[in-house]
């Protein structure tokens, strides 16, 4: 069965420190993976997707098929990065192509 695991409920770092939010998935085949972010009192929004191989707001995420991971990284955290982060995996299209979300990690960046 497809599954997404975010092992940390809360991650607290100081401003300027590196950040890594962990995401592991289980999926047979080529996964489509996304990171979504929800800032306080704002809607959930797409941060990045693995297919794009882009850096958004200084964040990057590399798909590691060997370790079945898609960790989100940023070299120097900023206070405005404080938010809830969700990793998501797209289910196969014969299952409607729905997104399967992890439990979420709350990132708190302290001054």
């Amino acid at each position, binding site marked *: 069965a497809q599954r997404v695991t975010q092992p940390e409920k809360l991650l607290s770092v100081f401003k300027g420190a590196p950040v890594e939010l962990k995401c592991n998935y289980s999926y047979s085949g080529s996964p489509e993976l996304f990171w979504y972010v929800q800032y306080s009192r704002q809607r*959930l*929004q797409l941060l990045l997707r693995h*297919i794009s191989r882009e850096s958004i707001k200084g964040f990057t995420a590399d798909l590691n098929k060997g370790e079945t991971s898609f960790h989100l990284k940023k070299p120097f955290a900023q206070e405005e990065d404080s938010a809830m982060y969700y990793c998501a995996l797209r289910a196969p299209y014969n299952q*409607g192509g*729905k997104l399967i*979300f992890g439990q979420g990690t709350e990132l708190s960046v302290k001054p």
Partner: protein
Amino acid sequence: DVKVTQSSRYLVKRTGEKVFLECVQDMDHENMFWYRQDPGLGLRLIYFSYDVKMKEKGDIPEGYSVSREKKERFSLILESASTNQTSMYLCASSFGGPNQPQHFGDGTRLSIL
């Protein structure tokens, strides 16, 4: 810019009431979704629809139903509200096809008393 609009930000209802949550998107997206968001549980899919009048059960459909009479509108119905349905409800929409992201509404915080 994609706009997904949920009819209410906050809603308070009583146990046993029939509750309607409305969602409208303006991007001609084929797919629409309803989730509930609970602390520690992430987002759980209730129902989704990939075409008008089509619906598919998600992971937690019990106690809910949906309606999609028009492409832009997807309604979530709580047939007989119960206190364990108190939650944040999120609507999302997307194009079909690979690697298409979902776009979310602001959410409806529903309290069942």
